[in-house]
């Protein structure tokens, strides 16, 4: 077993990271910190998950969320989708493996992946509403959020949700408040099978290797780590039995990347657009300087009087 993270000391420790450790801040420039923190990661071993939803309950409890009383949609997945009160969600998929003819129950804990290249942060128009720490955690800062929902369009994993109550965006924080004092995320703490483990990203990769070897020895030839490079790698990773087909797991993107539409909108459109507007204004000034005002001459007025004056008034 992976050694459990020890309980916190009784005396409150100083936070291990904060404002000084930002590597990215939405709609603003930051000077990268001189010393970077060690990258952390949460590893979710889907093969060890029993679908108990302890992580969901722990998340709601730690973050003091109040999910609405739901309804039965005929699936174990409950609520049926992530909400502003459910930062994480067990997604259940029943799949018949065509090679073995076995029914496989694939249970994936969905939630923010904490991308190294976060689409939400790139799409965000509000300075400081989304931040990325040098340890890899991507966090929403609610007092700066304007509720526009651009993060939803930026996210390759369809994670953020806008609250209808305070009109700000919510998602998994990777328990940044817990990690800051040396604890693992609440979901990790609650997981009874240690399907969720937390540590440095390197440790998690090593642990994943160990797990993948174990799975391969049990006949899961395609077992592997889900750490998609299209978004620069993630700080929430999965061990999948069928890593060749991530989309089996309730539509986990096979090759996630920030949508080219979002890249175009936030990239070339912004620069070309501003340049075009600036050019239009500049062209007006230059034209006015060169051509001068287009004035009506006294002759024009006289012609008009001749034309109109002949008629009775």
């Amino acid at each position, binding site marked *: 077993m992976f050694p459990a993270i020890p309980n916190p000391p009784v005396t409150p420790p100083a936070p291990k990271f904060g404002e000084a450790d930002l590597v990215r801040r939405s*709609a*603003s420039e930051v000077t990268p910190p001189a010393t970077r923190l060690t990258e952390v990661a949460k590893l979710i071993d889907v093969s060890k998950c029993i679908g108990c939803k302890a992580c969901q309950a722990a998340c709601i409890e730690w973050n003091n969320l109040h999910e609405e009383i739901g309804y039965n949609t005929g699936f174990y997945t409950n609520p049926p989708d992530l909400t502003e009160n459910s930062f994480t969600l067990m997604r259940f998929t029943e799949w018949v493996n065509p090679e073995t003819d076995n029914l496989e129950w694939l249970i994936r804990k969905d939630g923010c992946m904490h991308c190294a290249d976060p689409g939400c942060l790139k799409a965000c*128009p*509000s*300075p400081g509403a989304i931040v990325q720490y040098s340890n890899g955690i991507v966090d929403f800062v609610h007092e*700066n*959020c*304007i*509720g*526009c*929902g*651009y993060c*939803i*369009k930026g996210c390759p994993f*369809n994670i953020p949700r*806008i609250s209808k109550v305070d*009109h700000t965006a919510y998602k998994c924080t990777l328990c940044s408040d817990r990690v800051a004092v040396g604890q693992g995320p609440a979901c990790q703490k609650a997981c009874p099978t240690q399907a969720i483990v937390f540590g440095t990203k390197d440790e998690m990769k090593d642990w994943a290797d160990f797990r993948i070897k174990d799975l391969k020895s049990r006949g899961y030839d395609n077992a592997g780590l889900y750490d998609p490079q299209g978004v620069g790698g993630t700080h929430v990773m999965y061990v999948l039995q069928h890593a060749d087909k991530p989309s089996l797991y309730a539509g986990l993107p096979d090759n996630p990347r920030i*949508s080219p*539409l*979002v890249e*175009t*909108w936030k990239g070339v*459109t*912004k620069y*070309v*657009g*501003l340049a*075009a*507007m600036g050019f*239009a*204004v500049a062209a*007006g000034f230059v*034209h*006015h300087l060169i*051509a*001068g*005002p*287009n*004035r*009506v*001459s*006294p002759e*024009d*007025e*006289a*012609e*008009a*009087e001749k*034309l*109109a*004056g002949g*008629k*009775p*008034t």
Partner: protein
Amino acid sequence: MSRDRTRPIIMPNAVPAAVPADVEPGDAVHPGKPVTVDRYSGAARINHWITAVSLVLLALSGMALFTPKLFFLTGLFGGGQWTRAIHPWIGVVLFFSFMGLFFRFWRANLPAREDGVWVARISDVLGGHEERLPEVGKYNAGQKAVFWSMSALILLLITSGIVMWDQYFYSFTTIEQKRVAILAHSIAAVVAICVWIVHVYAAIWVRGTLSAMTRGHVTGGWAWRHHRKWLRELVQKPGRRTPAE
């Protein structure tokens, strides 16, 4: 002043003719020194200025969300949350207000024979050589281009705007559709702002134009210089005069 478009007006030495498409209700010539020509009714002007104010507010609030460099503009609207909330509603005002303008002006903006020549001689237009241009009706080809491009852009903006108006319409479209909408919305907005810059600049450059949209009338000389065909039509139609005359 009411007008019957179908009733031919009989004039001495003239064949009966229908009212030309570019003569709008309220257009009239008042002989005098100088001649004044009524160009926009009070209702049309109010309609125009509601549209203008909405468009400027939309441009400011939209630009604030378009680029971080201009995010400070949200301060004009009471902060980011207010800007996000109010921008779509101003868009609704603009849409209906512009629809009013569209139905007022579309007939006068239909293409005319002289438009092609006007466009071909665009360098004379920019050089201010009106004498080398064909006589044009109430609107020249440039004004028509502004009218039709704004019509198309505003239709595109309201459509894409509703797709990305998450507060009320989130569940009706997919995220991918919203991404298309947001890209289309920003490009259409950039083009619309450029068209607006051309529109405002033309009104400033061509002196004597602004009074058409403020006081409602222009001088006869202005009409003679820039919209001579329209002026001739107005002079030839006694029905266009005010009853006091």
